[in-house]
């Protein structure tokens, strides 16, 4: 279960960071037909969590045969614009002159992205990683729905499975031990990366 949680949290954090870096770069640094349309299309998802469209999303995943799979766990949670929005905000603060200097130096768009934009975004990426990792780790409803196979359970949702159905007495020591195990990784991350965490939180929401 810990392994599943880890894969899910990492998958969500990395996946979201990669696709939103790319799309934010496209939206901020290029002028192409339909740019505004795509922009709004992506930002419409900004505040609508999976929970709102949970049933149809479940059906989509089921149709793709992605129940009980990591990709089924990860992809629907990536479909949100929060990270894209954060990177967009950050890219807007990068001075135009830097881009121009890079152009004069002969950098192609992707070279500029790799050599300049990406290294400059390092702290933002790290901060966002912390936030997204915790977000992914703490998911409950979604894994509850799509992982029917105990092999695929994440630890946070696994706890609930330990409660007996009916009138049996709950095995509290085991439940509490599991809860603590589920709490520890994110708590360690939050406390040890406090500065990054706070920054990621405050920046990504504003």
């Amino acid at each position, binding site marked *: 279960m810990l392994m599943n949680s880890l894969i899910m949290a990492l998958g969500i954090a990395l996946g979201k960071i*990669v*696709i939103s870096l*790319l*799309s934010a*770069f*496209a*939206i901020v*640094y*290029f*002028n*192409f037909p339909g740019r505004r349309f*795509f922009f709004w*299309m*992506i930002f419409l998802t*900004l*505040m*609508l*969590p999976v*929970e*709102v*469209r*949970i*049933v*149809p*999303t*479940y*059906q*989509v995943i089921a149709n793709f045969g992605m129940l009980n799979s990591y990709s089924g766990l990860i*992809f629907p949670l990536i*479909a949100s614009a929060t990270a894209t929005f954060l990177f967009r905000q950050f890219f*807007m603060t990068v001075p*135009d002159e830097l*881009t*121009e200097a890079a152009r004069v130096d002969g950098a192609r*768009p*992707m070279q*500029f992205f790799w050599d300049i934009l990406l290294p400059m975004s390092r702290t933002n990426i790290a901060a966002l990683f912390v936030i997204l990792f*915790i977000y992914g*780790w*703490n998911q*409950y*409803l979604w894994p509850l729905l799509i992982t029917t196979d105990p092999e695929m359970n994440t630890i*946070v*949702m696994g*706890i*609930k499975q330990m409660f007996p159905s009916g009138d049996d007495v*709950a095995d*509290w020591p085991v*439940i*509490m031990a599991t*809860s603590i195990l*589920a709490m520890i990784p*994110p*708590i360690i991350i*939050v*406390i040890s990366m*406090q500065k990054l965490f*706070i920054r990621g*939180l405050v920046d990504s*929401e504003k």
Partner: protein
Amino acid sequence: MEKRVKFKGWRLPMLLLLPQLVVTVVFFFYPAGQAVWQSMFISDPFGLKSQFVGLGNFEFLLADKFYRASFITTAIFSGLTTLVSMGAALYLAVLADRLIKGSGAYRTLLIWPYAVAPAVAGVLWLFMFNSRVGVVTWYLGLMGYDWNHVLNDNEAMGLVVVASSWGRISYNFLFFLAGLQAIPKSVIEAAAIDGAQFWTRFRTIVFPLLSPTTFFLLVVNIVYAFFETFGVIHTITSGGPQQATTILVYKVFSDGFVGQDLGSSAAQSVILLVIVGALTIFQFKFIERRVHY
């Protein structure tokens, strides 16, 4: 706001945008569209046939007393959760802001609950209030109070509110603290020189200056209470007793997955979508205005 410098070409940016577009369309727009589509059908219990009913599901829902009750439950639950978590956070933030030394340690102490999943928080609180082994229940019993949230509506609601607010305090605290620290000290000092006492200063200067933060948190917390608290409710009360803690999301889940009433569940999703959509637009308008001053 636009960049002065743009690269040319459209192939590369489309390529860059593609992953996000695919994910967004497949896992967001397609299901959201499905929700709207399904909300206009009713299917028989075996899912073999479905019949077009237009807005029938919505009419049915709005007439349904359980759904209306769930609306009120959600309103009470979100209102209380937002109030408790923001109130406590503001209080703690004001204390932390006045600390000159040691505010770092104080912060560390306060932020870790954020890392605890709502579902896990639910389990922890359930443990403390459990009728057989719960510490708090035991103490309350000693004082002559018989706590039983499994049977008592209000106690159940109280418990889910507390459990939901608890982890959220960290989050609100961080934003309030950041907001407080952004207020120029000179403004407060000027008021102090004018003879304003702490409480007067807070009410007339600090709180108004904090209002953008407060407003932002209000919206975010309502959205949180609407959705992310599912884990808390599912672990603690499972919506009971007698649906006393069945908030809208929980009802989507229980009607859709437990009850297999897809049409109704889809219609409920659409209603939620509209509510959150409205909140988002509201928020955006506000952010835009805030950018200007």
